[in-house]
């Protein structure tokens, strides 16, 4: 490797130590939204597979909440906003 290429290695290593903190998007149980609708939202909005979307919906239903996505804060807030647009009770917490 030539000396000229070395400076590009440092930022990569530094970036690895400067990883952005992750935030969890939590969806809470509620007595109105339908199970089928929640699965559809998880499928279309978050891109979960049918199996994962169903598993998360059941976790919300039985345990009261589920972490449905994790991302850097700005991205997590966008997901929470989109879930609110779909009427789901979504909150954010540091991962």
């Amino acid at each position: 490797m030539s000396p000229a290429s070395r400076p590009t290695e440092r930022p990569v290593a530094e970036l690895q130590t400067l990883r952005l903190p992750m935030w969890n998007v939590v969806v809470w149980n509620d007595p109105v939204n339908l199970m089928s609708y929640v699965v559809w939202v998880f499928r279309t909005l978050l891109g979960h597979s049918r199996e994962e979307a169903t598993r998360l919906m059941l976790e919300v239903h039985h345990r009261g909440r589920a972490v449905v996505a994790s991302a850097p804060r700005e991205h997590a807030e966008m997901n929470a906003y989109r879930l609110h647009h779909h009427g789901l009770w979504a909150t954010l917490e540091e991962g």
Partner: protein
Amino acid sequence: MSRFTAAGQKVLVALEPEEVAVLSRLPALLGSVGAAWDDPAQDRLNPEAYPGDLIASREFSRLTEKELTEARSADRERFADTLHRLRERPVLHSVEAAAWVRVLGEARLVLAARHGVLGGGPAAAEDDPPESVDLVELTEPPPETDPELLLVDYLGSLQDDLVGELLTGMGEGT
């Protein structure tokens, strides 16, 4: 005949005139959210993003409120427009069907919240086992006798049918 039938990227709609009349009330219902200062539907549709952190929650609301209001308004307009032309063109494209699903769900939340069905969320998870949160258990008198809660059930059956067809269109059965 089913009320919704998936056909590729479209959904065919077959609603009775009485059903269309009922649904035509929904845009006005949703447009009324927040008109009264103590409207419980307002809080239900806009939950705190950061429970226990009022400052962060307010900042989140400040950043998203305008866009969220506009998105909901666009859904209502799309719903009203497509409902109005159902007799001539009983078809929903995927974007229109998604707006229908959201409007039906939002209307259910608004009606339920205004009838005291406010369980769920972080507070309910702390107070009660989630299995105890149930629409039928929380309503008094029983929902079968309350026209507005009957409407919640009816809109739920419509939403469930439409979601089932959309999932079918995604390549999976219900």
